[in-house]
Each structure stands twice: as structure tokens, then as C-alpha cells.
């Protein structure tokens, strides 16, 4: 199975990288780009008996390693 994980900064946490990208692209003439938020993406190949097990593993991975719940949220999809 394949898990696709997106980790993003919580909305109240500031994202200097996103802000800097937004400012730079605006100056380059990409006008309507109002806001950019940067995050992380992980593609994970899993051996799992079933979807439920895969979900459990992914939750574990995200909680313990891929995201820090103090500043980040995550979502994932399984294919």
C-alpha cells in the first residue's frame, strides 16, 4: 500500500518560508498570489495486512516522527 502524507504548520503558526516565497513571486509579477504556506509531503510504501493496519501505522509515524503536534497538523491518504 502507499500512504501519501501531508504535514503542514498549524494555521496560527507563522510560516516565514511561505511568506518569503509569496513576497518574491508577487514582485516577479505573479499577481493574484495572495498567500503561500509551505509544508512537507511524504510518500510511504507500506506492507500492511489491511487498510486499518496501514492507517494505524501512518498515524503512529506521523505522531512520532513526521510531525510535531505542537506546531504541525497532518493528513494522509492511502492508495
Amino acid at each position, binding site marked *: 500500500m502507499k500512504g501519501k502524507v501531508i504535514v503542514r504548520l498549524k494555521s496560527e503558526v507563522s510560516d*516565514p*518560508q511561505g511568506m518569503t516565497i509569496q513576497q*518574491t513571486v508577487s514582485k516577479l509579477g505573479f499577481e493574484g498570489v495572495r498567500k503561500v504556506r509551505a509544508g512537507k509531503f511524504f510518500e510511504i510504501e507500506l506492507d500492511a495486512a489491511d487498510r486499518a493496519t496501514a492507517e494505524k501505522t501512518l498515524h503512529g509515524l506521523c505522531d512520532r516522527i513526521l510531525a510535531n503536534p505542537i506546531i504541525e497538523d497532518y493528513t494522509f491518504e492511502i492508495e
Partner: protein
Amino acid sequence: MKAAVIVFPGSNCDEDCRWALQHVCGVPTEMVWFRHRVPDDVDLIVLPGGFSYGDYLRAGALARFAPAMESVREAAEKGRLVLGICNGFQILVEAHLLPGVLLRNTCLQFLCKDVFLKTVRRDTPFTLGVPEVVRMPIAHGMGNYYIDTDGLKALQDNGQIVFQYCDHAGRVTAESNPNGSLDNIAGIVNRAGNVLGMMPHPERAAEDALGCHDGRYLLESAIRYLIKG
């Protein structure tokens, strides 16, 4: 002759480059703000190390759009010398003035230490009189040079690889590769030979007070080349 150092927001070796060029090598050196054009009478343009735009997104990715880069491109086309050090090298590849790309170090960490370099080409404007093996510091998190197979072959065939990481005796070995660079590549030139990008910092090794003067050979090579015309 005259040199210029481009100051991008986030450059942090700009002043060190000026010090090495002007104070150590005695070349008048102008600081050029990234919004301005490089004056036409400048013979040597240095893109310094640092973290332009915080290295946000990818190192060099945002700096390449700086207005000054247009004049750097023109200068490069006219055959003036352009030296990109560390972040400057990253900007040159992002701006396609040099081929390839710099990825994250395979150790995934920023690495600051002295390395040995083999001077593969000692006939470029930057390497006349540079010994076969030199020592210089590196200080980067994204110095892992990558290019596809055809690209690498082209670099090799055209003799564009100028510096390779090596050991103290000049042997190019896997152990002496600090960051995973393909073919131990530490520095390359464009085909015309007037644009050099390198990860190690010659300006940090230009005085004995700092433990090594090997970097000075490189700066002085460029200067002598320009003075002789």
C-alpha cells in the same frame, strides 16, 4: 582592474569576500546591491556565500530572480569573470549559468570543516598557479552536486570539472567526499571557462592567520589573468 561582490538579502560572506579581495589581494572591490546592475567597468564579479532569501524553497532559487542577475548574465556572456562561492554557486546553477543542481548533503546535516581539493583543471582563469592539491573550508547544507548521466558526461568531455574533493595526498576517494557529490565534484566552470562555481570557500583560506592561504592562489589567479588581459 576592479571587482564587485553582489549583496543579496541573506548573503553573509559578502564582507568576507570583499576583505579577501581588497585587503588581502589589494583589488578595489565594490559592493553591488541585488537591486542594482553591476557597473560595466567591473572585471570580476563574485557571488558570495550565505543564505540568500534564507535558502527558503531551495538554495539560490529565489535569488536568481534578483535584478542584479540580469547584469551578471550579460557580463558572463561578454566573457568577464564570474565566481560563485557556495550560495553563489547555488545561485549560478539555479540561474542556469552553470549546469546541474546542488542537493542536500547526504548526511542531511550542515557541514563546516576543512576539505582537500584536487585542482583538476589548472588552466582556467581561476586556477593558473593553483597547486594540484589545496585545502579550503566548506560550510554548507546543500552542496551535493547532481546532474544527469548525459550532463555528467558532457562536463567530463568538456573538461568543466575544476575541483574534486580528495584526500590529503590528492586521491579522489569516496571517503573524502563530504556531501555525496556526483564524481566528488566541488567546482565546475561553464564551457567558455569564465564562470566558476564552487562549494568550498577560498576567501576563508586566504590568510595564514586563518590557518591556510590556499584560497589566495585562486583569487590571485583571477586577478593576474585580468591584469595581463
